[in-house]
């Protein structure tokens, strides 16, 4: 039986790292793998949470009854070849008994004066009384305690009542981990060190899971076959500070100018705390250093209807643009999960947490540094040098990324983001993909929209677009919402592919051609690569189109520049 993989994501940053992770699953980074994902959030209405759930819904729709695309590749495989199962746990802080720390901890019960004095040692009055419905608001010290309590409380209730247990997704998730104990399981957490829920949850997740498993198994379980890893993100974005009036109204409110301090404090805890050092095998620490931080409000002003006003603490409006650090966070999960980079035997030898870091090349520019990123920065394996003749892992990742992005741009540029029009064209040329359900078609349309450009409602006739996930990463990389980094800085991909959806410019054979010639050549290549098909499924289509793109050589601006320099 193959090893089970488990992912725990917490808070807003955790949600966005999870979105990156789902995109990696769609991109074929986890071929033929079963992954159980636990989504921890305290803010039920958080927009990032809704977006993440929607994304997973589209992913499952695309797979349909066929399930995940069968893939022969190891390390990197076919699109949508991972099987993901989502479990959501949102502690209920909406009731009278749970709305804030004071009522939840029953401070007023029994000897209330002593209880209050004890609580005051740990938490200020404002912290004890703020409404928990929108999350922990960067109050990590409170959040850790509450998250652990919520975890254990949920498991106890599920164990006591079969009906409650049947409806509890957290209980189901813990049972899966419990079952995986025999064969071994890797559990990876995603979160930030500067926010609320994520920063609160990461330190307590292993303990909460272990104690929950003990409750379920009546203390008979041994947890040595469960290996924990985590990525911890330091601050990488900012937003306008709250006004004095807002601070007066909502006493506890997140302020991005303290994020770096919060991160520093959390990291000092992680590197010194013995519980963390004994529990986590690997901790991936990611930050944005001296690079320019993205102003999320500036980004929203550029693209969304929201033109600002009050600082958003959570709820429907908390939706920040994607950032490459989140992609690195998701890739850290791949690094931990893959046996090529993290062997299970090696994990058993680790007695104290190994800390992992990542650096990027950068160029000096005026008052700051401009980072540059290549696909080999995302992921590479030591064994690649020995695989003569076979493409290196980072090259396969490049191929998959470029192909997937090209499909999204192609759908937007030529087909009004409706894949049925592409199917109509292919059917005309005797490649018929008619064995897809309406749900699969809708899933594909929505997923590729999400990846490249999301149409927004507009009062005028022209459709407006909000940058999709990959374009958000492009625009936030140098914190330039209006444009984006030069080609050589961002994976060597063509700038025109991001700004004008000219997807063909990412391929050497198509770059110099006009749009009409590029389309002609692509279809010719599609016909050359794939047999005529009378009736095809979604898997057939994804495999066929990926194979077509793989016949082309991807363009790398950085390699081209180096080649010119050499000449």
């Amino acid at each position, binding site marked *: 039986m193959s090893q089970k993989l488990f992912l725990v994501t917490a808070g807003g940053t955790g949600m966005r790292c999870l979105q990156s992770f789902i995109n990696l699953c769609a991109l074929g980074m986890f071929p033929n793998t079963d992954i159980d994902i636990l989504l921890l959030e305290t803010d039920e209405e958080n927009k990032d949470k809704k977006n993440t759930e929607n994304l997973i819904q589209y992913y499952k729709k695309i797979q349909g009854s066929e399930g995940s695309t069968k893939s022969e590749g190891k390390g990197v495989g076919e699109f949508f070849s991972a099987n993901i199962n989502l479990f959501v746990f949102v502690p209920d802080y909406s009731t009278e008994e749970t709305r804030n720390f004071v009522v939840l901890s029953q401070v007023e019960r029994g000897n209330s004066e002593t209880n209050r004095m004890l609580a005051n040692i740990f938490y200020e009055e404002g912290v004890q009384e703020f409404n928990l419905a929108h999350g922990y608001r960067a109050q990590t010290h409170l959040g850790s305690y509450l998250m652990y309590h919520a975890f254990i409380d949920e498991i106890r209730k599920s164990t006591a009542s079969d009906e409650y247990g049947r409806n509890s997704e957290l209980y189901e998730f813990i049972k899966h981990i419990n079952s995986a104990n025999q064969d071994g399981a890797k559990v990876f957490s995603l979160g930030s060190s500067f926010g609320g829920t994520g920063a609160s949850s990461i330190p307590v997740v292993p303990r909460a899971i272990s104690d929950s498993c003990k409750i379920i198994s009546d203390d008979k379980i041994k947890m040595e076959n469960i290996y924990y890893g985590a990525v911890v993100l330091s601050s990488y974005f900012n937003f306008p500070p709250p006004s004095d009036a807002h601070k007066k109204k909502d006493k506890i409110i997140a302020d991005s100018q303290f994020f770096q301090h919060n991160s520093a404090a959390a990291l000092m805890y992680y590197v010194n705390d013995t519980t963390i050092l004994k529990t986590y095998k690997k901790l991936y620490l990611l930050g944005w250093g001296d690079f320019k931080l993205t102003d999320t409000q500036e980004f929203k002003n550029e693209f969304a209807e929201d033109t600002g006003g009050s600082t958003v603490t959570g709820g429907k409006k908390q939706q920040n643009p994607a950032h490459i650090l989140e992609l690195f966070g998701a890739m850290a999960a791949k690094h931990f999960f893959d046996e090529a980079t993290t062997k299970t035997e090696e994990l058993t030898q680790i007695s104290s947490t190994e800390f992992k870091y990542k650096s990027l090349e950068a160029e000096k520019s005026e008052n700051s540094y401009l980072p540059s990123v290549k696909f080999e920065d995302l992921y590479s394996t030591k064994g690649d040098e020995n695989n003569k003749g076979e493409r290196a892992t980072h090259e396969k990742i490049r191929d998959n990324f470029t192909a997937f992005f090209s499909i999204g741009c*192609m759908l937007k540029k030529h087909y009004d983001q409706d894949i049925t029009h592409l199917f*109509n064209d292919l059917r005309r*040329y*005797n490649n018929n993909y008619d064995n897809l359900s309406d749900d699969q078609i809708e899933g594909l349309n929505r997923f590729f929209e999400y990846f490249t450009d999301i149409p927004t409602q507009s009062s005028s006739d022209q459709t407006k677009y909000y940058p999709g996930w990959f374009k958000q990463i492009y625009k936030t990389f140098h914190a330039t919402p209006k444009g984006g980094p030069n080609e050589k800085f961002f994976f060597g991909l063509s700038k025109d592919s991001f700004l004008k959806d000219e997807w063909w410019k990412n391929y050497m054979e198509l770059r110099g051609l006009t749009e009409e*010639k590029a389309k002609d050549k*692509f*279809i010719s290549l599609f016909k050359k690569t794939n047999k005529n098909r009378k009736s095809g499924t979604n898997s057939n289509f994804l495999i066929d189109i990926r194979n077509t793109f793989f016949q082309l050589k991807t363009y790398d601006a950085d390699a081209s520049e180096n080649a010119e320099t050499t000449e």
Partner: protein
Amino acid sequence: MFEIINFENYESSITQMQMYFVVIGLLFTLPIILINRSIKYGMKRGKNRDVLKRRIFFFSGLIILFVLVVLPGFGIFGNIKSQMAAVIESDEDIIIPAIDNAFTMCLLFSVFAYLSLYILVAYVASFFKQYKQMTVFRSNNKFFGLF
């Protein structure tokens, strides 16, 4: 083009004439093949017309060939018949009707040559995974997109 025709050799002359119509049919195919090869595959939201254009060119070529062959007086057949008549030495009352009777076969030969070469090129090209010519006959996994 033709040597002196008399009773002894008029049948071989008629055969030569029929071969000439085969060559005309073959030559007519070539520009159509080149034109259809240059019509690009399309990728767009609305209905793509590239397959329709290739069919139009294919059938237009066929119709033009047919008309040019059968056109009375100035048509290819009429022209060749005049050339042959000019070199008939004797027995005109036997040879000219024989030439007229060969009209149908000449027409069929040229049309058949046109169709055969085009189908052959489309078939051979598909072995080299070039499918543009074949789309004339087969699209939407149906013959002519219909059957």
